[in-house]
């Protein structure tokens, strides 16, 4: 009996370990490099799957800080319906407003406080909200609202990696505040990393 339990336990453990190693079963990643021509940095491009089957519930709230007179992160991709907590990490008052889509102005508040805004009013994808501060006109940030959680933001060298993408055929697109590129079709196969590169122009 004990021996049977050990065998069953081992099998279950193996199954669990296998599941943990590949949490969505046969899902895999999409990686690549985005090159933004004419710019010194290729950072802050959002690479995303335009449309994935199913509906996606936003997880915990996202966060955008205002620190050293900048929106941090500069670009924040989220799933539609996500609530973003706008913090003020600076000793000076900051304001947050957006002239885009339904437009909003969250007011002005001091260091340490935050205000929330839920992005569930825009139907198109991606739905881009420019974040501005009336107190400091040079500040600019972006909230990019997407249909699904399969997205990534490039680093300075343009590298990105989207994990846990279920196998299937998709259209991979890029959003950048200053440059554009045509979307590309991509087929994600089980346990087979996919590489897609982009070159963005003005």
């Amino acid at each position, binding site marked *: 009996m004990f021996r049977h339990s050990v065998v069953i336990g081992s099998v279950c453990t193996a199954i669990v370990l296998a599941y943990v190693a590949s949490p969505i079963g046969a899902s895999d990643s999409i990686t690549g490099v985005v090159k933004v*021509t*004419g*710019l*010194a940095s290729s950072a802050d491009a959002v690479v995303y799957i335009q449309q994935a089957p199913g509906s996606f519930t936003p997880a915990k709230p996202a966060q955008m800080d205002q620190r050293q007179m900048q929106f941090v992160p500069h670009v924040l991709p989220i799933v539609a319906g996500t609530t973003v907590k706008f913090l003020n990490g600076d000793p000076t008052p900051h304001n947050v407003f957006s*002239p885009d889509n339904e437009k909003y102005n969250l007011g002005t508040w001091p260091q340490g406080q935050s205000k929330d805004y839920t992005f569930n009013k825009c139907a198109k994808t991606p739905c881009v909200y*420019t974040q*501005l501060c009336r107190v400091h*006109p*040079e*500040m*600019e940030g972006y909230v990019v609202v997407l249909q699904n959680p399969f997205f990534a933001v490039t680093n300075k060298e343009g590298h990105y990696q989207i994990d846990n993408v279920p196998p299937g055929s998709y259209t991979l697109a890029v959003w950048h505040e*200053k440059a554009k590129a045509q979307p590309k079709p991509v087929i994600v196969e089980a346990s087979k990393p996919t590489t897609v590169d982009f070159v963005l122009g*003005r």
Partner: protein
Amino acid sequence: MTRLERTRRVVAGAVLVCLALAVTESTALAVPAFARKYQTSCQTCHIVFPKLNAFGEAFRLRGYRMPAETEEMVKEPPVSLGAPAYKRLWPQAVWPGAISSHTPLAVNVKLADVNTSSLNEDGTVTSVKNDLQFPQEVNVFGAGTLGDHVSYLSEITFGEGSDGSVAVELEHASIHFDSPFGPEDLFHFRLGKFAPNLADGFQEMWISTDAGIDSLFNYNPIGFNGGTGLGADAVSPNPISLPTLVRGIEAYGIIRHRALWVAGIANGVGPGSNDTTGRFDGNNAKDVYARFDYKIGGMGFDGDMGGHPIPDKNWQDNSLRLGVFAYRGDASGINFPFTTDSGLMTNIQDVHFQRTGIYASLFTGDLNVFSVYLHGSDSLQVFDAGTAALLSTGVPDYHAWFTQADYLLYPWLQAGLRYETVTPADRSVPTLKTGVANLSALIRANVKAMVEYQRDLRQGKNHSLNAVLRFAF
């Protein structure tokens, strides 16, 4: 006044003008502020500074922006004065701009060893040897861009007089609106005090000497017979000749890479040093000018190469540039005092004056030959200074031309020869003919040594030899 006296007077005037120019303004610009901004060499835009190459000319015409400029070309990113998104908020927000992240200042220093010989009216010769004008002048530039479509240029020149006095002149102070609307580079305009594009291309752009081109910019038409020559009885630079600097508004643009059009309105002749009204314009009329150039071959005015490869040597631009230009001035109501040979004191007004010219510049290999012909006519009215009675009227004309050849012996060494003439309106005065030889060496990219010899080809006792060291930082 006899013919000989007139000749001597003109000769003396010419030499004085040369001296005056040597110690006063030169509108030729070399602006290291741009070298800092782009972290690039002077040779990107200059052949031997301040002479521009084709790329530098495109950079200048495009409002101090590189052809097909991208953000990664700007090595010192500007300080944003407003996020780009604020453009969409206008008029509910201030349109965003930008300023340079470094202090956009640059300095040019010019040291000169001046040697001159000039024939006086009494037949004696005055010579000056090794007058060490250290420094002769210092120019402080401010230049850059103010975000999209706006740029600026300012220049203050300091000169020290032999009596210890310091002369300060504001040579440039202009704001430029570059391609504010419409297709790129088709329409630019600027306002302020600036070197008009009228003369650019054969004045500011090409001069590697520091002595100017006297025949075009220092002719004085004031006189009973329409003037006798360069600079006589007038301040330098002559405000009635072709202006080197104007206060005004200028529009210009590039059509299909190859054609350059210019149209401008200038304040015109000032009221004179005795005026106490504080005005800069001597009357209510404005002067107008226009220019049209076409370039065959080489780099387009906007930096476009039309798919052709860019030459390895950045001073080469195998091309032919042809241009026509015109300036119409109105100096009515502005009195120029003139005393006749018989002692009669008069006031002369240049009611209307016109300057028209043609221009050609050929680049082939390391050689650049360029030439300008200018015709001028003046509607003069002579009044008795005491009674204000009109004594006479006339429409005298004069013409001038020069041709210059610059050859680059090495990338750092340029030899130049220029021949220029002025045929004064008073035909009893012989045509002024001047020869100039120049050797300019870049000791460093921003340090230039130059030796220039200038000679009056009618009267060999009038000549000058200047050695100049100029550096920019």
